[in-house]
């Protein structure tokens, strides 16, 4: 079964009584375990596409199926439950609650989830949080405040939070946009690893290096998908140079 099926998606904003068609007849199919990058110039509708297909924003027309379920037909409570238990979100800015430690921010959605009640289940959540933090190399900042850690560490903590409930799909909006090169590399390494473990990922990026590590790149311009470049599975950093070159050439063709 496809993870995400988008059919004839349209999104229109009315600004100053003028209709602004941000997304026009978008059709996408993302299969389970795929990592799809969305690229395009500023204002092309990349982020709007991500927010609309993930149910964070309402669509104007069309249909979005998540594992065969029409997310537009879900009520707010069902949509919250879907976001909580089956989706994960990573934002460009590393948003976390200021009054909570890094660790508490990570486990919060898990405690709220359907599997978060009961002493035994909460123990399992804590074990998973520790395992995720260990894997992402941030165990030592668990008890820190969010203003006590670097951007890269914080973004990895955000990734831990997005993974805590074993989501079927992760939506990432410019996950490396606010990071330096080194942190950006580390974050992408983690996303590739998660994807290799079977989690479907859809990410929006400006960065060719980031997009080159995905299985497929969609190019969006003026609210429409202008093209698609299929790489196939990313096998390791030895491929980086060649994938980036190919992507660069294709993007030039697209007029990026």
């Amino acid at each position, binding site marked *: 079964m496809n993870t995400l099926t988008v059919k004839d998606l349209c999104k229109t904003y009315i600004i100053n009584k003028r209709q602004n068609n941000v997304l026009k007849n978008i059709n996408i199919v993302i299969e389970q375990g795929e990592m799809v990058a969305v690229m395009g110039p500023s204002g092309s509708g990349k982020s709007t596409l991500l927010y609309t297909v993930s149910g*964070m924003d309402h669509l104007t027309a069309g249909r979005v199926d998540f594992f065969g379920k029409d997310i537009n037909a879900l009520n707010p409570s069902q949509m919250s439950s879907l976001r909580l238990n089956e989706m994960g979100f990573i934002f460009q*800015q590393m948003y976390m609650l200021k009054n909570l430690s890094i660790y508490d921010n990570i*486990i919060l959605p898990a405690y709220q989830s359907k599997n978060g009640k009961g002493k035994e289940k909460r123990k399992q959540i804590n074990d998973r949080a520790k395992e995720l933090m260990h894997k992402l190399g941030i165990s030592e900042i668990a008890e820190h405040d969010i203003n006590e850690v670097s951007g890269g560490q914080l973004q990895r903590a955000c990734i831990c939070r997005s993974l805590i409930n074993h989501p079927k799909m992760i939506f990432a909006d410019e996950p490396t946009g606010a990071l330096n090169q080194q942190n950006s590399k580390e974050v992408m390494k983690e996303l590739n690893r998660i994807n290799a473990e079977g989690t479907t990922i859809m990410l929006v990026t400006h960065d060719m290096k980031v997009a080159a590590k995905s299985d497929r790149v969609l190019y969006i311009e003026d609210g429409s998908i202008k093209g698609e470049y299929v790489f196939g599975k990313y096998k390791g950093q030895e491929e980086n140079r060649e994938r980036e070159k190919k992507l660069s050439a294709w993007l030039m063709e697209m007029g990026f």
Partner: protein
Amino acid sequence: MFLRILRKDLKRKRTTNLILLLFIILASMFLASSVDNLIAVNGAIDHFMEISKVPDYLAIALTDGKTDEIADFLHEQQWISEYEVITGFNLINEDVTITECQTDSGKKAYERTNTLFIETIPTDFMKVYTQEGESLTLKPGEIAFPKVEADNNNLQVGDKVSIRVGEEEKEFRIAVIVKDAVFGSSMMGFKRLFITEEDFAEYEGQEDVIRTGIYNVNYIDKEKFQSEWKEQDFKVISAINGPETIRMCYIMDMLIAAILIVVSVCLILLAFLVLRFTIVFTLQEDYKEIGIMKAIGLRDAGIKGLYLVKYLALSVAGAAIGLVCSVPFGKAILNKAIVNIVVEQAEQNYAVNIVCAAAIVGIVLLFCYASADKLKKISALEAVRSGSDGERYRAKSRLKLRKRARMRPYFYLALNDILSSIRRFGVLLVTFCLGMILILLPLSAANTLKSDGIISEFSISPSDVYLDTGRGETYTVDMDSLFRDMEDIERTLSKHGMKAVTGADMGYMIPCYSDDPDDSVSYYILQEVGNWDRQYSVLAGREPELANEVMITELTADELEVGIGDTVYFKMADRTQEMIITGTYQSMINMGQGYRVSRSAKMDPDYAGGIMCVQVEIEGMESEEACERLKEIFPNYRIMDAKGALDNMIGGIIEQIDTLMYFIVAIVLVINSLITVLLMKTMMTKERGDIALLKSIGFGNGPLKGWQTFRLLMILAASVVTGTLLSNVLAPYLIGPIFAMMGATSIQLVTGTAEAYVFYPLLLFVVTGFTAMLCAGGVKNVDLKEVNDIE
């Protein structure tokens, strides 16, 4: 940028600014009207005393209308400048019949509230005035009633009553409801009706009727006069030491104005708390703009000026509206507070209102100036980074989620927020706590006065029924008639199948002293009479048992500097009785002054001042049922339970406190709701990003509303508990002195009632909680995309 911030502030924080404006309006309205009223009432009492010509000393005594030794004494007195004797006839309930009543209540039997006289219109001393403050004039056939008597019998101008004195009965039309300076206050135990001299003359010829002489005296030399007066040993039923004592009786009339001042002070405090809260919040919200202004070189003073301008505008607008509202509001309160007082017909003193409103503006600005001082402490960098300089490693006080194995996350978030911002939420706690205390203190006073045992604090033993035959003064000249009436009551009840015993406390006014006979002062002395041996509460020692034993109130003991085992002397006409003090007690009769003697004490009946009521104890019957039955059996008697009897004795204080409390409850509920709206709106504005983030990670509207609501409910719960505990601690210090003023020096205040512990806390909880829930509904309007607004 200045204007942009100001515009943004006024637009975005519309609700916050509106609520702050409302608090400033309320604070200035309450302060201006209550200060003005207090000055007006205080001035009005002085003015009323002056125009009524209240004497320096006044004595009331019963006479036979033939000889008047007091008048003879006054006539010969050299230490007084002037005197006047007013003669009236005593009226009992049966002497007055309602013959025509517009309210058509069907009630014909008259029920007097206090000892009642009928007399001519006073011309020299103790003058009375109409409701409009004009001198009283009547035509033959017309009568003037004091308000309390008219209200008690549903009488109004135009109604007709028939008055019988001895064998003579005449009908009168009520022409005026009067204000009586000396006897008008609710605490005074005498009331007067007025008729013309022509009408009064028709009663004059009556034989064998009780007359009352009111003797008004102005001194030349107080000491010498009083010394000679004491030597005469006149038998008086009451003696009042001039305007000061009478002024004390108007304390209840000033109480409402005084409590309104307390409420307004609390409102001002709340306005400041709200102000501080909003200023600090506004500053935090505007950190970025402030940072940019600082970064481009604007000085702190300039930035501070921006905020001062805003609060100046708000406080001036609020104070102006409050000032305008304070005039009709103050008048409405004043009219309620001064039903018994004639207010000087002068122009409204707007200056007081203006000064109060200006004071509010000044205080608000000073407070704002001090609060905005925080600007100095923050650097441009810190401000741009929303209060964080990125270099702080101070861990915030918080709970660890993973250690809360059973706690729901929204509950955890609420609790963690409170613990992380103790100061911010502390302000709310103090506010709610104040509200709780404001409700519980008058409640404690009202409950104490309504409690079953309170009657014994008045040195009256509890009984099923308290019965006023309306013949209290008749008993003073013919004490046997009291015993006949009591026997008659027992016999009648027995015929109706009720086994009853009756008893009463006869009051005597007798000069007493401890050391020097020249220092003797008349005190109210109670003695139990009737077939029923009753128990009286004592504070120390024991009840008097022998003829020469006496119990003394603590206040009198302090005044005379005597204690248990000491001797006091009662100066009666034919002898001076030596009495040994066996115990102390407290009483709210006669402002806590007096004695109680044993049944066997030999008291001179010439000094008898009457009884308050006949007490009836019925075997096997509850008070409520007994009162209902006795009302049917004795339709002409006034039948009361303990609460009614007490209320009758202390002039309707319970009802006034109840009314006041309902008013305070309404105010507190409105304030709590306003503060809740303010806090929730402000917090939600600040936390929109966090709410959006939580929504994006799967929190539904329900848990988010729970987070926002629980935070407030937890504070509310803590405030209710703290407020209740604090009011229990504070009550003896704040309410105790009021009771002590009335004579109850060691009263046990009633605090732990279901009303105090359950009803009012629950009411606050439900109303404030409901407001919080309504406000929390706002989370559903937060768009998930606002996650990008997190700073």
